[in-house]
């Protein structure tokens, strides 16, 4: 890769230059600035280094870190094996080395202040805002157990064991008190969200596993902060003064810190949601509020010595739904994008600086026993803790977490910059061995991030190798596998395996009635209600009024209006109400709740390498079909995984699929309904007609049928087909789902005007009341076209303009006299 090589050379060269140059100005003094008393007079250009030094350095460092990332990402064959975070640390080593070489002193390092105030908040904001809420809250119990008990266990066991080893003499003549060991244990026990994410991005694990580890890493901050502060205070107090009262205070402080922090975040989240209700006129800077309020939430919690991370996490979690609904789509996109930029950038810088901080002679104190034992114990206790806790949890879980996942969970307990930051914050006066602790922390961080990161993928591969389907599947296997998924999803829905959780119902009701009402914009609620009606009741009458409403507003306008488009993502994506269909990606609790026995239907770990290899071995001809199928088969709901990713955000790809399916289903139901009315089975064959053909047929045919070519009305018809009055005789031969046509090629079904007028009692319907006409069906008609309807609406639908004239109307019988109002039955 010659080109890559030269690029790299230039980049390294320039970084070296920058690094070196960054040091120079210190040794120079520019007097020109100091006063015009120099001889030469006015200087046209002068070097004002000191004036710009601080921001310049910051900007320069950001640039350097981003360039590192650029270089790393340019080499995919390397990133396949070594996670990006490890490579960034290595770049940090190199840079640190360069600076050390230039300066003999490590001028730059990751200071805790910078870390906790500038680098960490954006990352946590991103996680909070993009958190898959449903998944998170479903597994919250498990996550909390791991976060609280797991972290405490890790801290206590590590501290005690190390202390025991010290007594046993394994560490030479180190003299560290028990309390200090416990303090050390508490700061290193915490699993780090940054590191976890970075590594899990390479290895696609199943979502339950992911949310467990990830959620744990987020929530354990509450525990870590408390433990750290408590033990810090204890160390300050000194051993003898610790009595029961202090310990109780410690325990209480845990609750206060954790819940207080969450509460602060929650309050800010609500504030933001309320605010987003009114920001219609400042859409251009709407997105900015997310960052400002998030940061304020963080700082406020910090100020009150509560858990800042918890605060910003719950801020994001709480406000997600409302701001995504309230704000304009562009704003939402901007927010999602910007938050990722900041998070990614901050993460990059953290890792680079972690690397740089290592190249500093002054901080390294080595004690073989201490370091090695720490590493050992961390691993062991993590495994022990996870296995024990999971065993305990599996007793009550519907979907037990199997051993492979447990291993991955344990192995994925990476430590990262948070531990380092806390270590550096130790008070050297009270803790003599601070340097040792810092060094050990660094080693632990490098070990977990680099070594465990690199070996994670192979480990997973090795563990899963028995399960992953390696044989090449025949077409029918593929199709059938997908069909099985769909079937299972359907059966789960039919049998209502969602689980009627009392608490959850209560929360949904509360949320629906109070929170949504206050926090969502009225227009948004309206829209949601409309869709809500359509879906929930699947009531023909309502659907009719919906269609008619669209008619009234002028079909074109209605069609083009976005609100007509079922905004699945907005409505359902973040929706937690049980009565709404859980369509979108993150509605996966149902999957986990009911699908333990089909865990393996989709290998929970997908390795891209494997898939690519497989693809390459197919024959060319077969390749086409397989490839086509692969590309176009609808994914079942199970596969719409919500993958939280630092580097991607979804742009509603799934929505199209769902739209298609929905429209098609409604269309076919409509036809079946119509055919039921007509008493003739809809055609079983696939009818293939282009629109043009249709038009011609219209001109030529003598039959009393006419089509309205309105593709865009598909959705609106869809509503109308939803459920129908059971009083209509459905003759034999009704075959729902038969005669499925490709909607792209099919002549578009027109408006469902055959709905008897007695079902419409909506006032707005009045203008378009004409023509509830029936056509006598003949078999020949059926053969040629899909169900025929006359569209004789008098409104301004463009379909009328397309179709030939109204001459056919006269031949049709007058509308049948409506039987007595039967509205009640339909509902």
């Amino acid at each position: 890769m010659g080109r890559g090589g030269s690029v790299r050379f230039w980049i390294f060269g320039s970084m070296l230059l920058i690094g070196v140059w960054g040091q120079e100005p210190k040794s120079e003094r520019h007097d020109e600035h100091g006063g015009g008393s120099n001889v030469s007079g006015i200087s046209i250009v002068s070097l004002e280094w000191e004036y710009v030094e601080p921001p310049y350095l910051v900007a320069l460092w950001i640039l350097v870190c981003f360039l590192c990332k650029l270089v790393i990402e340019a080499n995919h064959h390397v990133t396949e094996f070594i996670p990006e975070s490890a490579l960034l640390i290595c770049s940090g080593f190199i840079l640190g080395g360069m600076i050390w070489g230039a300066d003999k002193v490590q001028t730059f390092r990751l200071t805790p202040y910078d870390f906790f105030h500038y680098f960490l908040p954006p990352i946590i904001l991103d996680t909070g805002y993009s958190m898959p809420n449903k998944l998170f809250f479903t597994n919250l119990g498990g996550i909390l157990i791991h976060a609280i008990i797991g972290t405490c266990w890790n801290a206590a066991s590590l501290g005690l064991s190390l202390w025991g080893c010290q007594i046993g003499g394994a560490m030479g003549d180190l003299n560290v008190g028990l309390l200090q060991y416990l303090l050390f244990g508490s700061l290193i026990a915490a699993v780090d969200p940054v590191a976890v994410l970075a590594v899990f991005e390479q290895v696609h694990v199943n979502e339950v596993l992911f949310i467990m580890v990830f959620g744990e890493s987020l929530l354990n901050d509450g525990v870590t902060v408390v433990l750290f502060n408590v033990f810090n205070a204890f160390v300050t107090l000194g051993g003898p003064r610790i009595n029961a009262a202090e310990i109780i205070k410690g325990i209480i402080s845990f609750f206060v810190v954790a819940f207080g922090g969450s509460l602060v975040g929650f309050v800010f989240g609500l504030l933001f949601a309320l605010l987003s209700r009114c920001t219609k006129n400042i859409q251009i800077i709407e997105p900015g509020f997310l960052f400002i309020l998030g940061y304020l939430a963080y700082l406020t919690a910090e100020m009150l010595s509560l858990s800042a991370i918890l605060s910003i996490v719950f801020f994001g979690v709480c406000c997600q739904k409302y701001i995504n609904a309230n704000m304009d789509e562009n704003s939402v996109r901007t927010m999602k994008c910007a938050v990722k930029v900041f998070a990614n950038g901050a993460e990059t810088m953290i890792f680079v600086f972690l690397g740089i901080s290592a190249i500093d002679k002054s901080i390294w104190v080595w004690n073989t026993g201490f370091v090695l034992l720490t590493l050992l114990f961390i691993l062991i206790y993590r495994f022990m803790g996870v296995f024990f806790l999971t065993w305990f949890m599996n007793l009550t879980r519907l979907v037990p977490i199997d051993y492979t996942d447990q291993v991955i969970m344990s192995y994925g307990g990476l430590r990262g910059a948070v531990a380092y930051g806390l270590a550096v914050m130790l008070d050297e006066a009270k803790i003599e061995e601070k340097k040792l602790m810092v060094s050990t922390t660094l080693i632990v961080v490098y070990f977990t991030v680099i070594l465990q990161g690199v070996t994670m993928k192979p480990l997973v591969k090795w563990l899963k190798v028995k399960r992953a389907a390696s044989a090449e599947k025949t077409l029918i296997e593929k199709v059938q596998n997908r069909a099985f998924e769909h079937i299972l999803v359907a059966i789960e829905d039919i049998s209502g395996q969602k689980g009627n959780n009392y608490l959850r119902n209560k929360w949904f009701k509360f949320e629906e009635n109070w929170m949504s009402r206050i926090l969502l914009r009225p227009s948004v609620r309206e829209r949601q209600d409309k869709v809500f009606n359509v879906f929930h009741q699947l009531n023909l009458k309502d659907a009719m009024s919906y269609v008619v409403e669209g008619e009234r507003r002028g079909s074109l306008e209605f069609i083009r209006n976005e609100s007509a488009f079922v905004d699945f993502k907005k409505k359902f994506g973040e929706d937690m109400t049980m009565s709404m269909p859980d369509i979108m990606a993150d509605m996966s609790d149902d999957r986990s709740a009911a699908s333990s026995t089909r865990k393996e239907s989709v290998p929970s770990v997908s390795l891209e390498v494997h898939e690519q290899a497989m693809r390459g071995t197919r024959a060319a001809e077969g390749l086409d079909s397989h490839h086509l199928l692969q590309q176009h088969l609808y994914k079942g709901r199970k596969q719409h995984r919500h993958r939280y990713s630092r580097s991607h955000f979804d742009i509603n790809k799934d929505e199209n699929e769902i739209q298609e399916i929905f429209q098609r289903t409604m269309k076919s139901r409509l036809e079946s309904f119509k055919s039921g009315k007509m008493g003739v089975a809809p055609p079983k064959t696939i009818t293939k007609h282009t629109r043009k053909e249709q038009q011609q047929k219209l001109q030529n045919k003598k039959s009393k049928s006419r089509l309205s070519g309105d593709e865009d009305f598909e959705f609106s018809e869809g509503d109308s087909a939803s459920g129908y009055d059971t009083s209509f005789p459905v003759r034999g031969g009704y075959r729902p789902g038969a005669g499925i046509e490709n909607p792209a090629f099919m002549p578009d079904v027109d408006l469902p005007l055959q709905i008897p007028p007695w079902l419409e009692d909506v006032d707005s319907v009045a203008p378009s009341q004409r023509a509830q006409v029936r056509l006598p069906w003949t078999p020949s008609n059926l053969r040629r076209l899909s169900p025929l309807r006359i569209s004789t609406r008098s409104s301004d639908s463009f379909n009328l303009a397309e179709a030939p004239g109204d001459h056919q109307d006269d031949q049709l019988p007058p509308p049948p006299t409506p039987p007595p109002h039967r509205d009640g039955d339909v509902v």
Partner: protein
Amino acid sequence: MGSRASTLLREEEIEEIKKETGFSHSQITRLYSRFTSLDKGENGTLSREDFQRIPELAINPLGDRIINAFFPEGEDQVNFRGFMRTLAHFRPIEDNEKNKNPTASEPLNSRSNKLLFAFRLYDLDRDDKISRDELLQVLRMMVGVNISDEQLGSIADRTIQEADTNGDSCISFQEFIKVLEKVDVEQKMSIRFLH
């Protein structure tokens, strides 16, 4: 008929269903409450419309076919027995069941019965063969709009080719079973029903 109370499940019925389907007592009662919640007409049977009211089915590509599978040939109402009978196909196969009673009729959730269920989704006219047309229909349901009919046709042809052993360009049930023998049907067609 009319009030919910009068349509409570009787013990004998539960026992019968238990014997026939293998569900446990609590599972049956739970599914019964689901049944009644779907039964808007409160007449003890479900019609197709009742199923269609479930919103998620509308966005399931095979939704309508699956609904159809609940209804016996030619009928439009399904009672609770029938409902359970269909759901029983999806019970996971437990190990102890395999050895229970070799002379008894095959349980509803056996591998071949599960496959039969899947087979029947394709084979609408119940002639025990999946014709090219039937396959095309199901494929079309499962695939997006971006595949043209010709392409889909060729996919269907290849699919039949792979499975068809006796050359009649249809897939019989035996051929269906054969071609899916490597697939872990027991797992892929099982749900753990809540207790």
